[in-house]
């Protein structure tokens, strides 16, 4: 199958939800391929369906129609646990609102997924990763005492520490000021270039769009352009 050589493949994917006002089609008829080591940036206005699309690609959510392939596996009829096991150790996430564990320090935040995934040398891996994001001196600080930019660095360190094949980022600079946002974007693309990780990033900012290998525009749940 062609999907075997692709990191992610979407085939005629649709997503609809039931709302009090009736059925709502969020995504319509989306077909999209992401090759390994590619950096894809998806841009769209707020409410256009970016987050929904990202959730489907990562297997966090289930499509209403069509097929989603991740690492060559069809996610369509898989349970949440099966999809989770496909992601295990192979994907990383960076979120708009960081999603760090409050009350734990930077080091522990990076270590937590490693330990739970049963990776050997979790501490070593976490330390290296924190060094890469330039936070080696703040490993023991509680995350709530870090600045927004630093918190996102911890999240990036956490994502790269598992050495993922693909990194999903949902508006990673959305909560940051322009200067910090640019620094975070620099860091993320730098690490990606170093590690060759596949990157899927969604944003509503033009600035990030330019940095990808490929740009995709989304509007009202439909893909507009897909340029190689």
């Amino acid at each position, binding site marked *: 199958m062609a999907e075997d050589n692709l990191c992610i493949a979407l085939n005629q994917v649709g997503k609809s939800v039931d709302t009090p006002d009736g059925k709502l089609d969020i995504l319509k008829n989306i077909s999209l391929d992401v090759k390994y080591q590619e950096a894809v940036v998806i841009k769209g206005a707020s409410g256009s369906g970016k987050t929904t699309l990202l959730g489907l690609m990562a297997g*966090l959510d289930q499509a209403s129609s069509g097929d989603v392939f991740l690492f060559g596996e069809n996610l369509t009829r898989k349970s949440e646990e099966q999809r989770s096991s*496909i992601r295990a150790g192979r994907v990383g*996430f960076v979120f708009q609102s960081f999603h760090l564990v409050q009350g734990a320090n930077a080091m522990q935040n990076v270590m937590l997924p490693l330990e739970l995934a049963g990776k050997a040398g979790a501490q070593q891996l976490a330390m290296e990763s924190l060094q890469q994001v330039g936070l080696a001196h703040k490993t023991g600080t509680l995350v709530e005492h870090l600045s927004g930019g630093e918190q996102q660095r911890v999240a990036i360190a956490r994502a790269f520490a598992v050495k993922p094949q693909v990194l999903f980022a949902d508006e990673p600079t959305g909560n940051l000021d322009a200067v910090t946002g640019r620094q975070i974007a620099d860091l993320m693309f730098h690490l990606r270039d170093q590690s060759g990780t596949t990157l899927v990033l969604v944003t509503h900012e033009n600035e990030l769009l330019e940095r990808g290998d490929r740009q995709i525009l989304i509007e009202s749940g439909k893909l507009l352009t897909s340029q190689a």
Partner: protein
Amino acid sequence: MKVGRATIHSYWLMFIATVITVSIVTSSQLITDRIGLLLDRQASELLAADMVIISSREFDADYRQQALQHGLQVSNSVSLRSAIFIGDDPQLVELKAVDDAYPLRGRLERTREVTGGRSATTEIPARGEVWVDTKLAQLVGSALTLGEAKFDTSWLLTFEPDRGGAIFNLAPRVLMNLEDLSRTGLVVPGSRVRYRMMFAGEQGDINRFKIWLTINLKAGEEIQDLENARPEMRQALESTRKFFALAIVLTLVIAMAAIAITARYTANREAPKVAMLRAFGISQQSLFRYYLRQLGSLWIVATVSGIALGWFTQFPLQWALDGWFGKTLPQVHSLKPYFSAGLVGLLALAGFSLPYLANATATPPMQVLRTAVNRRSWMRGLLITGSAIVAVFVVLVLLMQSSLLAVATLALVLACAFILPLILGWMVKLLLFSTQRRFWLRQYLLSRLQAASRGAIYVMSGFSLVLISILLIAVVKDELLGSWQEQLPENIPNYFLINIRSDDIEAVGAYMQQHRIEASTPYALARARLKQINSIDASAIDFVHPRAEHMIKHTFNITHARELPDQNEIIAGEWLDPDNPRPQLSVEQGMADKLGLEVGDELTLTVGSMTLRAPVTSIRSVVWENFKPNFYLIANPELLADLPQTGLLSAFIEEQNKADLKHLLQRFPSITLLDITELMARVRGIVDKASVALQFFFLFALASALIVLLAAIQTGRHEREIESSLLRALSAHTNQLYRVHILEFTLMGALIGFFSACFATVAGWAISVYFFNIEFHFSVAVWAYSLLSSCLVLTIAGTLVSRRVYNVSPMKILRS
């Protein structure tokens, strides 16, 4: 795991709740065992033993042999009246000869001189010595002739457990060694001697021996134990014990409610973390194991801390109680309290927190991208409530002997878990709709309501359960104390005259009237045993009531009367027709309930060696605590005419009548006088002492309540922050918002106060009537207290919440 240690601070409320639960169990087990032991002892000390047989003849040697084989301690005493001479004046004394083992329960107290310090002793008079009443103080140090023997008077006897305190106008006591008795030559055929054989030991051994004894008892021998010798005392002890059990269980329920609420709160806080980890591909199973480890370490640390805390509380408790008991609580050496504490902690965590955390591990990973992901599952709800019910039930069964109490408590918990959230949610809706007219406020409050249905309602229900439990403890305690006071009118009888010879009964009654001593009618008393009900052997009947068997094995008082005794009420059938010679019986309500008797049933009784058959013609309620002669069975005079009986009456004897009483006792020397005042003081003392111990458990209850409150304040704080920032953006005045917040909490407080008072009243009524067999009185104070405290506490909580919300910078809120 390092992460586990670092995140434990999000568990700290749950941790403290668990520590409290464990220490409640530890300290209650340490203390109740000891208080139970002490209460038993205290009661037994009235008999100087756990059980006594009394006779006017010497006992079979077989009795002692059998008692020893049953693992009991045995002691013998012989008492008789004799005359001594002080100078040339004859003086009647109560001579009592005891053996080395005496007293089996309680201590003798003695002194060298009347004004000197008294000291408790385990000794008895040495051979050749006697100890005498303080009234004979002038004899100390001199020789005393008793019958044909001479004795040294070495000590003044100041206290003797089975004498019922200082009975002032009986002949003064002379205590001697049993081995000296034969030397006096006072025991000769025809002399009025009372033999007592006393037994003490483990309750089980006593019970077994009692069965043997009952079968082998000879005519003229009578068994006395707490059950039949002092029914008022037994009631007080039983009630105290039950009350103690109830209060501890309620305290425990509060602590477990705190665990449940804090666990729910913790689980909610863990949800985002779970979603993040699941997005990273961590399986639900590993997450479950992760939480299992977290709970495991929490359990271990909490158990160790809880046991330590519980262990330490016994010292202040002991110190407080010693002041009341005036003696050291008996030590209990057993690991059981610690084991049960650890087990209850484990059960509570497994039952209340594990389901919540297991539920949290199912948080959909999509939640990392979008906060509101709908997820409602009946199965999960069922799992949570199911395991909570099992946990509560196992804990209750583990810690309580009374199944009635276990079921009642379970019902209370279930009602709070299911009904309260419903009622509260519904009432809040109703109240807010009717009080809030202004549009935006109404909108706002409605949005708050939704938040409430998400969690606050459950926290509020938990808070309500806490309040109900605290109220219940207070209500039942008041009812119990009140039930003692109310039945004690101004001139209650302060003396019982027992052992009146049947020939003397009428003369004693006449004497009382003649000297204007307020006394009950004298009752003739026989001890009957129930053999058959409707011609079926009682021992062959399967009774439903657990106490029924006990009634069959024991003898109980039967009397005859023409008129219904004071404070008795006919509740079924008709009072005896004294002029009708056909056999008639009136049965006490409790006895009828236990044995399932109804009017028309025919009873076969044995009294001594005689057999009676009579139908039940009425069922009667009796106020057992009124310190008047009370009877299980009353027959018409005809029925008991030929039976061996002794007389009994109660009297209120004032200071000016004491000379008359003395005269009476001289005229009828067989009469034994029981001082009720002393008895009453002891009964009151026991309830008081139990209350002191309970104050400590109240502290635990308050600590748990505080935890619940903290959880309540924390729950939904984030939502509140966002909501208030939104409302501020919509340019609502901060002051208005502040007031709305507080109003919301105050309303909640009023609602909770109202429902808690309702629940506490209904449960208090049920417990009083069915569990303690006392009357219940509606208490306005409970309602006032409940409403006030609930409003106050929640208003304070509301203020705290609001302060926090408004101290948060809007920027921070908008960013998160």
